[in-house]
């Protein structure tokens, strides 16, 4: 590896770029060729379409929630309906958008290409995972159409098992099925990363995107089955009426909490880790520098996965767990901040002395770094026991969670979608419009969720559809921000669709990035590479890219 000085690269002249005559998109035609495909890139596109669909449904519920909260009075919907709104918002956004967002779309598309493989290890299981996702999504929509469910996305027992008469079983089955979709994705990634790397692709030459997905996959494989069995027990408890979770029958509601959060806390790392992988790629590419402290960033992903399994009880500090275990879980919770901070600091040092350019993915990445840092640090507040008792079940929690998940993960997702859009479709998105969208998203986000920190600190509880009038100003600000945020999310939807037909032709490597996926044609061939590549340099080696011979064969036809 050369000295960490940036290599100045000129972006290629795109006016001469041509779309390759043969690629994975035009290899076969017709709907069935997509529905029965085993090509990881086509499955990624299927996922991209379906998660976008669910994102906008979940977003619509968020809009309805913010609309209700515009005024202190409960004037738009009844409290039961409001409960159903935030439940549906949570379930759709978490299980049907955030968990599969980056892994199932970008990860699916890119991991085989990044490690020089022709496909994931189990292409048919990959397709099966998409079908399971669709079944899970359909069941969720069924529950919604039949009248909704109002347990909250956490299915808290015994509320979910005994007191509610809504469509809990349908929704729990939906999440059970969608969970297996996630397990199969994770399993496929782990086997692929272990067994399918091309010659020369050692573990420490892999892009950090792959490391992040590896860590997230471990969480998917180990955590998801536990929430699956917890949901099976909820379903059985509703069907048979026995009280594993019902204290009046000798059961233990805390047992449900343990089983549920044993998955659902690691699940937030399933959501954020792949996003961090995206940021590593974007920050390196647009600073033209190798990621500072590559090994530390790689291991910090694994450390987050490891620590992430031992912090779940911080969701239960006010539920009567023992003080001593709360103390330990509080300490462990703060430990997670260490590898997260390692990532943030290393990205900052990567930027230092880099030749930074501000393309759209980079703007989203900057948004990620700022918002994730705020979200992460407020997580440390919440991890400390005294603060947690004051702040839990208030809007502070809502704001913290959304800073990490929306400000962090969704920014990273959009950064990744823009960054790899030329690779996936062969066409560029409109640059100035997308920069505007990135800025609008950032402003809308801050305006939506910053007031919620204040509201939470002042004591406004979450999950109510009415509130004291003195909170109205901040709530109006938040609703106004949500409107701007909604526009910020609609814009990419529209111009990305537009660019499919009218976007400028991208060429093989429009960003002059170093990953193997960029060294082939855009969009790639069905088999990814004409010949399996040999990795003969470190990851993020811009000197290698500069001196790479120009006469290599990357096109067919």
């Amino acid at each position, binding site marked *: 590896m050369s000295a960490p000085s940036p290599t100045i690269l000129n972006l290629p002249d795109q006016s001469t770029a041509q779309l390759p005559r043969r690629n994975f998109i035009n290899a076969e035609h017709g709907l069935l060729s997509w529905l029965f495909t085993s090509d990881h890139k086509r499955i990624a596109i299927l996922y991209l379409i379906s998660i976008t669909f669910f994102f906008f449904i979940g977003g619509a519920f968020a809009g309805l929630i913010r609309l209700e909260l515009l005024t202190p009075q409960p004037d738009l919907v009844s409290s039961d309906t409001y409960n159903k709104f935030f439940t549906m918002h949570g379930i759709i956004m978490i299980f049907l958008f955030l968990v599969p967002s980056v892994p199932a779309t970008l990860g699916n598309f890119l991991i085989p290409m990044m490690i*020089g493989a022709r496909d994931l290890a189990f292409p048919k299981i990959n397709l099966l995972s998409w079908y399971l996702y669709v079944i899970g999504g359909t069941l969720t929509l069924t529950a919604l159409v039949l009248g909704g469910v109002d347990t909250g996305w956490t299915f808290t027992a015994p509320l979910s098992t005994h007191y509610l008469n809504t469509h809990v079983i349908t929704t729990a089955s939906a999440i059970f099925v969608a969970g297996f979709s996630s397990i199969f994705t994770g399993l*496929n990634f782990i086997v692929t990363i272990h067994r399918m790397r091309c010659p020369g692709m050692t573990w420490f030459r892999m892009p950090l995107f792959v490391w992040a997905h590896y860590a997230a996959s471990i969480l998917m*494989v180990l955590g998801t089955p536990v929430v699956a*069995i917890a949901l099976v027990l909820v379903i*059985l408890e509703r069907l048979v009426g*026995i009280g594993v979770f019902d204290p009046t029958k*000798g059961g233990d509601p805390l047992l449900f909490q343990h089983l549920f959060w044993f998955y659902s806390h690691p699940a937030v790392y399933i959501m954020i880790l792949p996003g961090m992988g995206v940021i590593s790629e974007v920050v390196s590419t647009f600073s033209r520098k190798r990621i500072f402290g590559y090994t530390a960033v790689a291991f910090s992903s694994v450390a987050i996965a490891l620590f992430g399994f031992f912090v779940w009880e911080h969701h239960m500090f006010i539920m009567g767990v023992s003080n001593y275990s709360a103390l330990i879980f509080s300490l462990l919770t703060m430990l997670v901040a260490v590898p997260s901070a390692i990532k943030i600091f290393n990205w900052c040092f990567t930027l230092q002395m880099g030749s930074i350019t501000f393309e759209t993915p980079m703007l989203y990445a900057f948004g990620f770094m700022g918002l994730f840092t705020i979200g992460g640090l407020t997580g440390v507040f919440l991890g400390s026991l005294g603060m947690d008792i004051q702040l839990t079940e208030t809007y502070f929690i809502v704001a913290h969670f959304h800073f990490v998940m929306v400000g962090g993960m969704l920014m990273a997702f959009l950064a990744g979608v823009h960054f790899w859009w030329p690779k996936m479709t062969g066409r560029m998105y409109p640059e100035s419009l997308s920069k505007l969208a990135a800025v609008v998203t950032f402003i809308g986000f801050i305006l939506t969720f910053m007031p919620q920190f204040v509201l939470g600190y002042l004591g406004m509880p979450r999950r109510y559809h009415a509130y004291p009038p003195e909170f109205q100003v901040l709530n109006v600000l938040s609703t106004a921000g949500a409107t701007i945020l909604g526009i910020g999310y609609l814009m990419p939807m529209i111009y990305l669709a537009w660019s499919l037909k009218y976007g400028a032709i991208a060429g093989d490597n429009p960003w002059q990035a170093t990953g193997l996926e960029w060294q082939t044609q855009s969009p790639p061939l069905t088999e990814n590479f004409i010949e399996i590549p*040999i990795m003969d340099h470190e990851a993020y080696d811009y000197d290698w890219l500069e001196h*790479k011979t120009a006469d290599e064969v990357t096109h067919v036809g």
Partner: protein
Amino acid sequence: MDSAIATTQAEQGIAEQQHEHVSVPQHRHHFATPEQQREAGSFGMWLFLLTEIMFFGGLFFAYLLFRNWYYDAFVTASNQLSVPLGAVNTAILISSGFFMALAVWAAEVRKKSLLVLFLVLTTLFGFAFLGIKADEYHEKFEKHHIPGASFDTSQFINPAAYGLSEKPLAPDAAQKTQLFFFLYFAMTGMHALHMVLGLGILFWLMIRAQRGDFSSGYVAPIENFGLYWHFVDIVWIFLFPLLYLINRHPLAH
């Protein structure tokens, strides 16, 4: 080497090596070699079994928790299970696993008729296990030990009336036996569900084995199914002592 893409001396060497391997018709082309395919398959199966461990782990955790909380009720309820039937079933399941191991061996030495025979024996013992299990479930049904509306605790409140020499339980403690039976049905039921799925796959494997799919050196499905079947065995090896054996009162008849 200048380029990551260009064909190099080293790669040609690898390509030549590949041709020395036996090429099987089941080789899928995104794998560089059949070995890679086989390794990926078995690694995937081990990972899947890991998820299964976590899945059953939740139930085991719940069982251990409630066993500690409601010790007396769980012991009394546990005495209602038949150790002889459980022991016979354990032996049957181990035999089934033994024949599965022999089937893997038969596939590896490419003996088609032996393979089919061992798969049939594996299946028969699997069905025998489920048959005995069904008989045990039926007995619970007759004694009203199925959790739910028809659950009857009188046998635990007044054991003498049923000719049992158990310590009588207070009515609220006797209610907790329902938790034991619920977990008993959930755990053995989940185990039985895995067996039913396994038996389905066994039929499919038998048809393919009869067709000669596994007689030419391609044994991955047999091997991987073997791993699954042994996993199902091992779950039972933990269930049998936990549900039937530990801290039983001396059998009194």
